[in-house]
């Protein structure tokens, strides 16, 4: 383990501040070279955890270890950490060059050494031409790159990023995401970033830590979490599912025991297939599908989202724009591939039993 949190808790005394999020007994281990996302809604404690790792906050309980050394009492500067602040906190009265050089000056490096290192980083982040600009003369992306270069200047062994894309236009976010991921890979630095955007976490991280109300709900690779969410919360946080309290009488899911009280079912749109009776491709599947009625159609940009009522339940499914048009009120056949069942006894993925047995190629 490169970084370890053991039983970290943080409580805030002042009752008046509703914005600060407490943390309750978080255990976390991070391997060298990993890129970790702390994902959760606001108030889940993700930023507080990041700030505690950095040394900007002091945990009420618990210990933080970096490479086996307890760092609780170490100042942030001695933890060898690079930190990218949410709004970058670039020094407004210093140029890009001076911003990047600041940490090295504090370390009392020689002039030539500083110049060499700063130029190297500006080269890496493609900021060489902008080195004499002030932060307010930079675009959001350029500011982010400056903040990144500044954080890396002192050659930290751990990079922390607090909502690194919050201050950036939605349009350029995706582009910057892959830039940042590649850059972190290139530098090879262990990194943790905080985000509330599931897409961002899935897109960038090797491993995601999902937080809710100050506790870790689930940790794992993005795909792993997506396929086996531990709770309804996780399942609903990743993707855009329908959550149902009861689910019975569906073909292929006869085994579901609906009588267990408190169980909930999560149905993802991508696990629902809707087709017309006359579609030859799905002909074999008609016997195991349900009758449904299209209730609503939403244009989502690159696909359509259909709301279909089946057995009195409204399901969502996606439809390619290339397929035949459908209208509201139209009858369709509906097939469900799999559902996530959450009962007090645990979480499980239930696959359509017919489909599983008869026609594995559709899986």
């Amino acid at each position, binding site marked *: 383990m490169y970084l370890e949190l053991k039983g970290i808790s943080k409580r*805030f*005394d002042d009752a008046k501040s509703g914005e600060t999020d407490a943390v309750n007994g978080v255990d976390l281990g991070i391997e060298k070279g990993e890129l970790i996302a702390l994902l959760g809604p606001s108030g889940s404690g993700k930023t507080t955890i990041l700030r505690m790792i950095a*040394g900007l906050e*002091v945990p009420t309980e618990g210990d933080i270890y970096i490479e086996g050394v307890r760092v609780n009492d170490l*100042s*942030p500067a001695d933890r060898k950490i690079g930190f990218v602040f949410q709004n970058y906190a670039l020094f407004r009265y*210093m140029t890009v060059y001076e911003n990047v050089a*600041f940490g090295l000056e504090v370390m009392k490096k020689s002039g030539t050494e500083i110049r060499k290192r700063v130029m190297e980083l500006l080269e890496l982040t493609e900021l060489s031409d902008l080195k004499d600009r002030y932060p*307010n003369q930079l675009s959001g992306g350029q500011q982010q790159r400056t903040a990144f270069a500044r954080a890396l200047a*002192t050659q930290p062994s751990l990079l922390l990023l607090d909502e690194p894309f919050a201050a950036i236009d939605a349009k350029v976010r995706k582009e910057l995401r892959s830039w940042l991921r590649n850059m972190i890979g290139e530098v090879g630095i262990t990194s943790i970033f905080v985000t509330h955007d599931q897409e961002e976490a899935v897109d960038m991280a090797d491993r995601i830590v999902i937080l809710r109300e100050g506790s870790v709900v689930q940790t794992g690779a993005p795909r792993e979490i997506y396929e086996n969410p531990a709770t309804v919360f996780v399942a609903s946080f990743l993707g855009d599912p329908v959550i149902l309290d009861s689910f019975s009488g569906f073909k292929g899911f006869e085994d579901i025991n609906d009588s267990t009280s408190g169980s909930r079912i999560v149905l993802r749109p991508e696990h629902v297939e809707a087709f017309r009776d006359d579609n030859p491709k799905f002909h074999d599947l008609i016997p195991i599908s349900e009758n449904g009625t299209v209730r609503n159609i939403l244009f989502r940009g690159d696909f359509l989202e259909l709301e279909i009522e089946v057995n009195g339940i409204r399901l969502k499914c996606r439809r390619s724009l290339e397929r035949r048009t459908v209208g509201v009120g139209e009858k369709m056949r509906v097939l469900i591939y799999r559902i996530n069942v959450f009962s007090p006894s645990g979480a499980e993925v239930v696959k359509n039993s017919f489909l599983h047995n008869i026609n594995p190629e559709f899986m």
Partner: protein
Amino acid sequence: MRFTRTRSFKLRTGRRDYSIIPGFSLTMGITLTMLSLFILIPLASIMAFSFELGPKGLIEAVSDEVVINALKTSIMCAALAAAVNCLFGLIIAWTLVRCDFPGKRILDGLIELPFALPTAVAGITLSKMYSESGQPGSLLAKLGITVSYTQLGILIAMIFIGIPFVVRTVQPVLSKLNPVYEEAAYILGAGRFMTFRKVILPELGPALLSGFGLALARGLGEYGSVIYISGNSARDHTQVASYVIMQKLNYMDYAGATAIALLMLIISFIMLILINALSVFQSRRVSNTYAAAQERSASSGRGARILIALSATYVLVMLVMPLISVMKNAFSKGMLFYLASLGTDYVRSAAGVTAMATIITLVINTVFGLAAAWAITRFSFRGKHLLGTLIDIPLSISPVIAGLAYIMTFGRLGWAWPALQAVNDALGTDIQIVFALPGVVLATVFVTFPFVSRELIPVLDSVGTNEEEAAAMMGAGGRRIFRRITFPHIKWAMIYGMILCAARAMGEFGAVNALSKTRGETFTLPLEIDALYMDGGADSVTAAFAVSSILVITAVAVLIIRSISEHMEKRDVS
């Protein structure tokens, strides 16, 4: 001095929230020490002495008819003046924020004139202007209205000094007010008046009230600008409370002076607490409705022209005319006489004392201002609001009381007197504080104490702590953070605060008046002006105006520099 990082880093979780930014103990220590030394301990001396009098003695001293009448006059005139300023302050603030017109920056700059102009200068000018020989005075006399030596005169002086308070509290709130609420009201069909009454006025309410409170507090304690225009006659009820205190001081009636001072202090404290509670309440409720640096289109048309005309007239009559009057009177006997009046030994000595007091005050208050602003804006701790309120005390109490506070501390009746004598005996020196130069300096420090910190705190608050946290994370020490990160942000605000502090220090009258008795030795320029004016002869009155003209020129220079520094600050930020 450089601390080793690991050692200076300690866990502090108890009394304040942990912060990585260094300097809490240092700045907090400086803040509390200086606050205690210059403000709290002297004020406590007044309280201690009044407790010695006992409740019976206090009530007796206060229930004297002269005292009751003076308090009545002070409260009534101050409240009326604050109300007038609320109305015109709102109009001026509105004009400055919502209208565009040539000379706007000049108008904006002039608002602060009463802060920069010495009160004694304002006093003699207003008195001269509104006397029957003065410009508006003769005009009003024809209409059968006498201003000078009546309560109306007191009212006018209090209006003069109160103008900036309402404008400067309403203006920022108005300029940050998000226009979407008004737009929403318009879209829902509300007319201009209804929108103003239902949407804008509630947002401005707390600011108006706190501006009213500040103006009221200032009016209540006002001395210099009031005493010349008021008749100071007990029979006509034209004595203000500060004047009565000063009179009692002159007659060595310390018990009486202390009793009135205590009562006024209590009134000031209550008002300060109310004002601060109000601003806390306001920031809680209104803060999220602020828009970040809104670009709004200036309103125009007939309504705007009326507002601009009203504002300009008010500022012209109330602020510009006195300025012109000073200059006219100063040169009324020609250039030679003017220069001769400036060259007397008394004036030279007074200029020297004033310069010395101003420079020392500037150093002390800048150190305090920086420390207090750092401690208050960079850390959160218990009692933060209380600290802010305590720092503001000098703004809301009468300067005469400040003088009294030092007399009750270091004077013959003061508790520090024996200690001072012991030191003098031991060292063979004869250091005196009251009625000597140190007293003049202390009084000046007291009156201008919050001037620098008040300019720095809002700037540091709006800049936020992000950059300093980032620098501290990289291991930068307190001095480096201050020099490289913080200072560039507050540079202009600090310069402006220092200049305003200097202007106010040069012009301080009431507090110094109580502590300085020797013309030619411990007199400052305002005291010299007072002495010349009170002499009454035509020549010495003109000389008084000649000396005043120096202070007027300084005040105008201050306003120009303020305007420039504000402009530079805006340019730096954008």
